[in-house]
């Protein structure tokens, strides 16, 4: 097992990946996770200390890195915000559909904040599955999101997101189908890279 050189670049990539992974495990429409600096992971309104260990499987790019993490202290309970979002979506007369979140000016409407937080958490899974020691992915934008009607109690959203890969600088469209329930958490049931050549 090779050791990562102790310089900024690789360390920040590993940190970004750890954040993505933790987002996937602990994110929800109620709250999102953002990396504050390489030593801490910050939640929207409170900072918690978090230690993570990232193991890249060098030479085996098909295998997702292992991430072990510990969070100091208690996570804030997001049940209220999650349930409010759940009820709001269930009571919509028409399936939710939206695009360009944030918009060109960085705006996210209050109604779309949970949709974005959900995408943030779900993209954590996609990023984790596709990361290597030479990549640094960030969710750049939700290009399109459409709710898929279900007969059971789950909410389902079909997203096309844009991932920014910070080393190659590419913008990669990615489709992901996200299932969510306040008590049962998030699941990415389907995802696929939509990359084509960089045409206008």
């Amino acid at each position: 097992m090779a050791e990562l050189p102790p310089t900024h670049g690789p360390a920040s990539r590993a940190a970004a990946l750890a954040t993505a992974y933790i987002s996937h495990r602990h994110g929800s429409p109620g709250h999102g996770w953002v990396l504050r600096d390489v030593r801490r992971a910050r939640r929207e309104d409170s900072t918690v200390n978090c230690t993570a260990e990232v193991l890249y499987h060098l030479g085996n790019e098909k295998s997702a890195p292992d991430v072990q993490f510990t969070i100091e202290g208690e996570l804030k309970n997001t049940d209220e915000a999650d349930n409010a979002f759940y009820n709001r979506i269930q009571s919509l007369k028409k399936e939710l559909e939206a695009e360009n979140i944030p918009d060109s000016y960085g705006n996210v409407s209050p109604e779309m904040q949970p949709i974005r937080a959900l995408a943030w958490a779900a993209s954590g899974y996609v990023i984790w599955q596709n990361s290597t020691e030479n990549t640094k992915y960030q969710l750049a934008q939700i290009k399109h999101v459409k709710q898929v009607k279900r007969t059971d109690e789950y909410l389902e959203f079909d997203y096309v997101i844009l991932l920014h890969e910070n080393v190659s600088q590419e913008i990669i469209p990615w489709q992901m189908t996200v299932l969510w329930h306040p008590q049962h958490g998030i699941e990415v049931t389907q995802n696929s890279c939509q990359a084509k050549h960089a045409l206008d």
Partner: protein
Amino acid sequence: MHSRPKVYQRLLNMKVLLVFAALLVGTFSEQLFVGDQVLRVVASDEEQVALLRTLGEQVDLQIDFWLDPTKPGRPADLRVPFSRLQAVKVFLESHGISYNIMIEDVQQLLDEEKRTMMLSRRMERSANEFNFASYHTLEEIYDWMDTLVADHPNLVSKIQIGESYEKRPLYVLKFSTGGSNRPAVWLDTGIHSREWVTQATGVWTANKLAEDYGHDPTVTSLLDTMDIFFEIVTNPDGYAFTHSSNRLWRKTRSIHAGSSCIGVDPNRNWDAGFGGSGSSSNPCSETYHGPYAHSESEVKSIVDFIQSHGNVKGLISIHSYSQMLMFPYGYKWTTSPDHEELNKLAEKAVNDLAAVYGTEYTYGSIANTIYLAAGTTVDWAYENGVKYSYTFELRDTGRYGFLLPSSQIIPTATETWPALLDILVHIQQHPY
């Protein structure tokens, strides 16, 4: 608001503006139309048309016809004051006259209209009344540059150093208090068009330099001894494209033989380690270095300018995002001969930046801080006699990335300012 036929929307707007103008002349800033509604009424026969006319004749109802009742089947629009709404609706309903509510609250519409008019006012009175807290189009920034020059004629002038691929002018603001070819510092923002906070920070910073000269001792001393050349929109074709078509466009918009993909990465096109690791030979790639070094007019124009000037002592190229301050080398792992001095200055600058709002930056050589990148602005400048060559990556670290909310423009520019000053002062105090 309800949607309505576009033809009437225009007619409606005419009426609204007339009403607003009347409001202005009459009782300025008094709200006269709160809760008033506009009802669209369609009379089904002549009898109903006559009834509508008599309704309008009742003075105490204060009905204001926006469209007069003419004949059956043709809509009539009535503005009804809030206090008379019930009476009018009862009248219509009891006579079986169908109507619908076109405007639920006239005052709301007027308020929105007023707000839109104020926001879209294009003629700024002076350069510092420009809205620095919002993102602007290329035309707006180019217009603003002229206002800045007009406001500070003894300090700022605008020069054109070349043309973009699509023939847009490449403008540079020259800050100079005279002398003859004084030592100079080059600043650029927006070389990657999607990094919108950089052009916006450029505008704010240029304004700050102009405003502070003659008032702030540091800025005054700087501009009394050195010139500053500031290119705010270094990639105008790309910037226009981010507004018109693809917000996340990075490169130039040049077309090169042999590929259907457009654009070259202007920060891989410089002749320093050109074509090496950390740039791509694939024209469809975001880091495509181009067919040869300085193939891009946006890059060549700067090269020619700096070389013919001959006395450029510092260069600061501003990007986003990642919150970093970096210096050469990017194209190789080797530390530069001036590494220690550049590193120490970078440390001071990021500390002074962090002191403003607590924003944390990392710093170091490009290769060590992010990754290998070949053919960068900063490496070229350094290898062509410009010792103090720096590149910033402004806010944030990925939460919004390129789509940084406009509310963060001024905080970003404000915190970056002391870091820029640190570098400028150091250059001033260490002539070479």
